[in-house]
């Protein structure tokens, strides 16, 4: 057990190191920082001095070592464009993205689970069939098209929800939340919905598949044979067994969702990390690009490792004997 955890941790660290290396490569080769930091009148001597100061003349490995050392301490330098500490900027935007992804995940579970159950237990009915059909459309619609459509209908035509931004936020310590004000909640609705659409269909399909699998299992057949009502069989026995995979998938998708939120954030001008990143891409603000990459990969790798370890701890065979 311990050996597995150690192995998994080393693996995660290795992956993070590689991602950091990738970020470092970007740092090195995309746009010479010197060219961007000095204006065009700067002389060659000024450029050389700056190169020296920034340590750009050090050997490659030394530079990488420094970069990793700083990255571990959360120091990615100063944004070229805003001249602000990059990690502070990302930390400022993190709550916005986190709340968006959290609410989208919540919506996807609340909507996706019942739909999945429904399509599983009534799988020959017309509505289950059509839901299956609709779910394919759900994973196929580009999220930016969905976002534009939502803005057009609910903000411009109906005027029910704001089209951009986060509304009022309240600071609790360093965390700024939009969940405590009505304007914040209103502003959150459309982006969260548009981000959750893909996730809803994933949850629904997963629950359906798992339910179908479980319903075929022997213990369900016995339960039925004992005359336990169908509702109890479906919800107490079958659904409970689908929870684990759903939680697992949700946890593993969370990191991906944080990254994918950048599309939603662009469409809704949501002031999160993704918007920061996209703006950094258009301004070639390399420190932000590198830092964002590392942060998102870290969340992704961390969640995956935790899920794997949790799985190892909750031995699947134990679950088997419980049933």
């Amino acid at each position, binding site marked *: 057990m311990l050996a597995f955890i150690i192995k998994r941790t080393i693996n995660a660290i290795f*992956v993070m190191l590689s991602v950091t290396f990738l970020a470092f490569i970007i740092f090195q080769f995309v746009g010479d920082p010197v060219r961007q930091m000095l204006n065009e009148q700067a002389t060659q001597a000024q450029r050389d001095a700056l190169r020296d100061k920034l340590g750009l003349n050090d050997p490659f490995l030394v530079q990488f070592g420094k970069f990793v050392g700083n990255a571990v301490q959360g120091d990615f330098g100063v944004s070229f464009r805003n001249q602000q500490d990059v990690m502070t900027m990302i930390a400022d935007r993190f709550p916005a993205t986190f709340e968006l992804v959290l609410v989208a995940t919540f919506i996807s579970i609340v909507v996706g689970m019942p739909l999945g159950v429904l399509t599983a237990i009534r799988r020959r009915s017309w509505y289950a069939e059509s839901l299956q059909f609709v779910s394919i459309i759900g994973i*196929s619609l580009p999220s*930016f098209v969905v976002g534009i459509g939502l803005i057009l209908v609910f903000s411009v035509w109906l005027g029910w929800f704001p089209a951009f931004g986060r509304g009022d936020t309240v600071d609790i310590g360093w965390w700024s939340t939009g969940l405590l004000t009505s304007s914040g909640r209103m502003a959150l609705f459309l982006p969260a919905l548009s981000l959750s659409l893909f996730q809803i269909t994933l949850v629904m399909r997963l629950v359906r598949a798992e339910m179908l699998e479980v319903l075929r299992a022997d213990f369900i057949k016995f339960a039925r044979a004992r005359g336990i009502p169908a509702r109890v069989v479906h919800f107490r026995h079958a659904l409970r067994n689908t929870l684990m995979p759903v939680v697992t998938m949700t946890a593993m998708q969370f990191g991906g969702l944080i990254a994918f939120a950048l599309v939603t954030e662009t469409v809704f001008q949501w002031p999160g990390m993704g918007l920061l990143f996209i703006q950094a891409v258009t301004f070639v603000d390399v420190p932000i690009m590198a830092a964002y*990459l590392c942060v998102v990969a870290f969340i*992704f790798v961390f969640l995956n490792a935790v899920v794997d370890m949790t799985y190892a701890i909750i031995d699947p065979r134990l679950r088997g004997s419980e049933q």
Partner: protein
Amino acid sequence: MANLEHRKPAAQPTRLQRFFDGDLWWSFKSHKAAVGAAIVLLVLIVTAFLAPVLSPQNPYDLSSLELWNAELPPVWIEGGRLPFLLGTDVQGRDIVSGILYGTRISIIIGIASVAVSLVVGILFGLIAGYFGGWVDNLLMRIGDVLLSIPIILVAILVSSIAQAFLPPHLREAGVAAVLVLSIAMYSWVQYARVVRAQTMVERRKEYVMASKLVGTPARRLMLKHILPNTMTPIFVTATLNFGLAILIEATLSFLGVGMPPNQPSLGTLIRIGNQYLFSGSWWIVLFPSLQLCLLVVAVNMLGDWLRDALNPKLR
């Protein structure tokens, strides 16, 4: 010879016949959505590749764009006129032509990125599985790292970086290639994993051991065994990845790091049209959006059916 040819089909049905008699075809025929999706996809692909013949205008030929014809509405609305069936955009680009050529780009980028990732994935999978050891470790760890960064990030980073490095005269031609690479960069891992697993199984089989003892490597023979066994999962993954690739390309173009406005893909057309959402020229954004949705839905519908059909457990 003639005799043989005459006799052969009777005794041993051709591949095509076997296919039509098989379960897959039967399942396909009975699945209305799959048939519908296949027909739609076929129409989209054929029209896209016949774009130069079908469309009234070549939207990539700058001299064919006439500003006089800018922002004409679709023909059924007052002010619209032929040959601009669905109207024109602000450059006087015919929407139908733009969509047909844009779909063609989207499909080509989709197919090319799937093809590249297939080739790379199968090759790396075979190498990793056959040689094992540090080669295997290296390739699979690279795969792990790639999969630990969300695809959209990989694609944005790779394409924005690579575009910055393209020399000016290659910029127009190079963008599509860069997009293909940035999408393929991610998806080869899935194929590699499948092929690697199968190769490792195969490597332990007796005939391989035997031929190794004799001293003639059984590589060719192995290939014959490995590839058919991995065909099914690879085919399903490839279909679904084709849909994903089209979506990713469209998203990148929409974000402004994909195809440029003078060689628009569907995503670029939507990005351009989005600027005219409130000005009343809704047709500039609506029709490319519909086309994109139709294309991806059709591909995914087919992929979904295929996955279910080839994996009886799920039915």
